[in-house]
């Protein structure tokens, strides 16, 4: 059967089980948009800016565990995706990015709206394709989904010139085979590596697990808990590893890093064996590399061999899928108990808790997160922007299940909170809470219309401190309080909500805030809550940039 390139592409998406595509049209993808009507089972969600399409696909992927799909036209459409692609790349989010390009005979001639998007995205995609024939679309799309969703996951871009959408080619079903010689999937760890890791862990007196997002991506929360329980190992997560172990688990101690808990940073620094699982020993988590716990033996379990040994010398590298590795490890571990070590950490935690709630009269961000946690029973899927509100959410929300915590960790992309929540909401029916900065919110607030279009029950909780809070904090602490370009003028957010036709609430006191949360929960549809939070509030604890974890500052001197 002969089909057009556009039909072939949509056949492929259908075969992949894609239900939702976040996109924005333009000249070269018109043949594709012309074809969407023939595929009513593939929902196209029209965003208001292509960056939002990418973030929405990303949020969708993080919540659902499936591959997110976004679509844009050539040139400016494609370049608008770049921040979203890079955000997904840094956080290993499985995503297939579709772009149109100018017709083949115009490629390379600077035709109208030509951008070399495969060139531009070389360093921020796991792989990309420029498909030059309709007959090659199916194989490229098949490979793109395979690559995006296996191994260390990540975004893959498929660029298709306009006339390739129009060209016809024989369609004989979605390819079943993949021939990627340069992409051998090694998910099963080498047994001797696992044995060596077990030896180190069995010999440990003060072991700690640093669990990263790899645990979530691999769906290995149960294995993580089993390993931790058998060998009695405290679990600390990275920022993206939050929710990989339920907050209430007795071995769950919170997260480490620049704004991690004091006791977590100290524990990581005092351990004799550090077991990194599905994480990459990133500088924000580990502090100054050369002074991170120099005596520790490092076990590192990761799917990506290039992460092993990248930042730290590893004593027991285990390359493979986190779940498979943990299942292989479990029987080799001797049941152990480390009461002294646990007690040492518990004491530290009791003496140095993270509980900065401020005065009763102040609506602080920290208190507000705790109130949200109480009112939602710790059950909500939380999306955040980047800044102080993000760190408070990480510190104070008690996450209970994997995929409940959606944040831009690696790239730290402000503006993520509005569109990523849209994607997250398309992946679940329970209302998503988006904790927003007033800075980040203003970067992508045009998407409120997309929210309205679909009447998504997202609760946008605007932590409105009137500042680019995190930058203000740094200027205060490290630049002699020389505040510059951080005091944000802003619109009347209630009028804004009104203009978009969505419910708007405002709260400036703790009592009002609690009432507003409850009122928002009763709304059937989107809500924007303008929380007038304390203007000046800092995130503590903190590891100053370039300092070691052992130099964590608890609060101002």
């Amino acid at each position, binding site marked *: 059967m002969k089909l057009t390139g556009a039909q072939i592409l949509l056949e492929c998406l259908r075969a992949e089980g894609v239900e939702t595509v976040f996109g924005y049209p333009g000249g070269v993808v018109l043949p594709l948009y012309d074809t969407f009507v023939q595929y009513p089972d593939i929902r196209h969600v029209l965003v208001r800016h292509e960056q939002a399409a990418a973030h929405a696909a990303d949020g969708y992927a993080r919540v659902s565990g499936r591959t997110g799909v976004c679509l844009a036209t050539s040139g400016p459409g494609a370049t608008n995706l770049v921040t979203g692609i890079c955000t997904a790349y840094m956080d290993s989010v499985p995503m297939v990015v579709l772009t149109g390009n100018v017709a083949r005979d115009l490629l390379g001639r600077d035709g109208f709206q030509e951008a070399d998007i495969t060139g531009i995205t*070389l360093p921020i995609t796991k792989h990309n394709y420029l498909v030059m024939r309709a007959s090659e679309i199916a194989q490229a799309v098949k490979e793109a989904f395979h690559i995006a969703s296996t191994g260390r996951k990540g975004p893959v871009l498929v660029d298709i010139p306009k006339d390739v959408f129009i060209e016809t080619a024989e369609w004989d079903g979605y390819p079943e085979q993949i021939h990627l*010689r340069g992409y051998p999937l*090694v998910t099963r760890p080498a047994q001797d590596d696992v044995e060596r890791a077990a030896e180190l862990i069995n010999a440990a007196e003060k072991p700690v697990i640093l669990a990263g997002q790899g645990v979530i991506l691999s769906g290995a929360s149960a294995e993580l808990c089993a390993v931790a329980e058998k060998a009695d190992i405290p679990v600390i997560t990275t920022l993206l590893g939050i929710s990989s172990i339920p907050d209430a688990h007795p071995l769950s101690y919170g997260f480490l890093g620049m704004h991690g808990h004091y006791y977590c940073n100290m524990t990581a620094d005092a351990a004799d064996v550090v077991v990194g699982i599905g994480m990459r020993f990133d500088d924000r988590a580990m502090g100054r590399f050369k002074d991170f716990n120099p005596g520790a033996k490092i076990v590192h379990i990761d799917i990506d061999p*290039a992460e092993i*040994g990248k930042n730290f010398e590893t004593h027991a*590298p285990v390359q493979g899928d986190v779940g498979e590795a943990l299942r292989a490890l479990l029987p080799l571990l001797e049941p152990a108990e480390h009461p002294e070590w646990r007690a040492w950490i518990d004491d530290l935690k009791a003496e140095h808790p993270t509980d900065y709630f401020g005065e009763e009269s102040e609506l602080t961000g920290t208190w507000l997160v705790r109130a949200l946690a109480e009112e939602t029973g710790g059950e909500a899927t939380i999306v955040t922007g980047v800044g102080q509100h993000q760190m408070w959410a990480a510190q104070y929300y008690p996450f209970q299940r994997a995929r409940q915590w959606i944040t831009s960790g690696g790239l730290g992309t402000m503006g993520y909170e509005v569109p990523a929540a849209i994607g997250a909401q398309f992946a679940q029916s329970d209302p998503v809470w988006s904790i927003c900065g007033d800075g980040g919110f203003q970067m992508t607030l045009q998407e409120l219309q997309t929210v309205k279009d679909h009447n998504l029950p997202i609760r946008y909780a605007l932590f409105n401190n009137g500042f680019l809070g995190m930058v203000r904090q740094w200027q205060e602490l490290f630049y002699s309080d020389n505040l510059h370009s951080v005091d944000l003028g802003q619109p009347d957010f209630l009028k804004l909500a009104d203009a978009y036709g969505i419910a708007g609430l405002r709260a400036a006191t703790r009592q009002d805030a609690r009432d507003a949360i409850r009122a928002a929960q009763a709304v059937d549809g989107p809500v924007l809550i303008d929380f007038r939070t304390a203007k000046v509030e800092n995130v503590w604890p903190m590891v100053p940039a370039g300092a070691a974890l052992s130099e964590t500052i608890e609060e101002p001197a």
Partner: protein
Amino acid sequence: MSEYSTIVAHVEDRPGVLARVASLFRRRGFNIESLTVGKADEPGLSRMTIVVEGGAANVQQVARQLFKLIDVVSVVDISDQPVIDREMSLIKVSCQPAQLVEVGELVKAFRADIVDVGPQSIIVQVLGDGAKVEALEGMLRPYGVLEMVRTGRVAMVRGQRTSKPPPVSVDAQEAEAARAQLGRRPEGALPFASD
């Protein structure tokens, strides 16, 4: 003196592959001393010989990052193996007819060839490892080197062993073997240790 390592990579012979490799080196801050590429004996593949700055820990990171590129089929670090390495150079030397015999003797001593003779200049072709090429160039300098071109290094491991990719089927065992070839633990300085 900087330390150098040699990597042999087999890559899919497709448009854009060189850009992917170059982009990776640039982005990760790996310095390429020389990169040569040409068709491999197996159809559809190209073979790259890459000489990079840095010792074992660095080259391991380079190899692993390279292998992550989907179009890169195999990567082997041959720095520690006995290899034959060669590069070819053409050197255009200013040479009056009266000097021709003298220069000819010199060239012969290096087992190089004069491949072009003009009224005022000659072109010398020399084949050998980098040291030999540089030595000859040094000897020719006094006559006046007008232009020089070097191919960059190609290398091959001595004996039975090859640096070729494993056969097409990627059953787990072979994948394991490929992985083991990448080496395991870094030694010495880490490539990305901040400050």
